[in-house]
């Protein structure tokens, strides 16, 4: 009986607080993306030759996210039949956009005019366990260019 009550409480906590946090996070991401939209970020530029004098620096941004109890539960249901796991897609989208924003913010602090050769990396740093653990890191890095 107790375990059922605990399960329902955790599920509710995950659903209500989790989705509220997600909503406000998406709102804050959209707002910061707007303010940083002047800074172009490109995935190209690895072999480009730069003749004009400029400064460059490695910039990066990272974020570690974990899924909530509700998402974990939904995932365990979906994994029985397979198919799209929308809740996880949302979570990883949040992480990618946040990591990119942190990269752009540090490039903006450096005074960059562009970021080239952007690369993303994702690593699982905590595997799923019975208690609902599980977290992954999204890491974005690139070269910030500052023309003199």
């Amino acid at each position, binding site marked *: 009986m107790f375990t059922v009550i605990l399960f329902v409480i955790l599920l509710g906590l995950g659903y209500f607080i*989790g989705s509220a946090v997600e909503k406000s996070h998406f709102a804050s991401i959209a707002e910061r993306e707007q303010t940083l939209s002047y800074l172009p970020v490109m995935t190209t530029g690895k072999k480009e030759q730069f003749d004009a004098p400029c400064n460059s620096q490695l910039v990066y941004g990272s974020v570690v996210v*974990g899924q909530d109890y509700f*998402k974990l539960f939904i995932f365990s249901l979906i994994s029985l039949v397979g198919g799209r796991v929308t809740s996880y897609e949302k979570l990883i989208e949040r992480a990618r956009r946040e990591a990119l924003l942190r990269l752009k913010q540090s490039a903006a602090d450096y005074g960059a005019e562009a970021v080239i050769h952007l690369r993303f990396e994702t690593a699982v740093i905590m595997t799923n366990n019975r208690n609902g653990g599980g*977290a992954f890191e999204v890491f974005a*890095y690139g070269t910030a260019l500052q023309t003199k």
Partner: protein
Amino acid sequence: MPNTKITVTNIETIPGKTIIENYGVVQGSSVRAKHIGRDLMAGLKNLVGGELVGYTELLNETRSEALKRMEDQAFHLGANAIVNVRFATSAISAGASEIFVYGTAVRVQ
């Protein structure tokens, strides 16, 4: 962020400068374990999901350490820049993760 003595990029050149000497591969790695307080907090945070700030900080510290080691190595070789830098992250045990960073040390004008 990296120290000012060495310019680090993840492209094949240092923009606006010419590479005059190549010193080969330099690397740096760092393994950090999460401490129990952070683990506990992250476990609680895991109930509602979202960003696990403690882990983000931990990985950033680890990454800075790995970058610093790579830069020190390049500095000792006499390089003043590192090009084509790449990162690799691996969870080597349940409680620890390794960050490995490598690149090519060069001297630019």
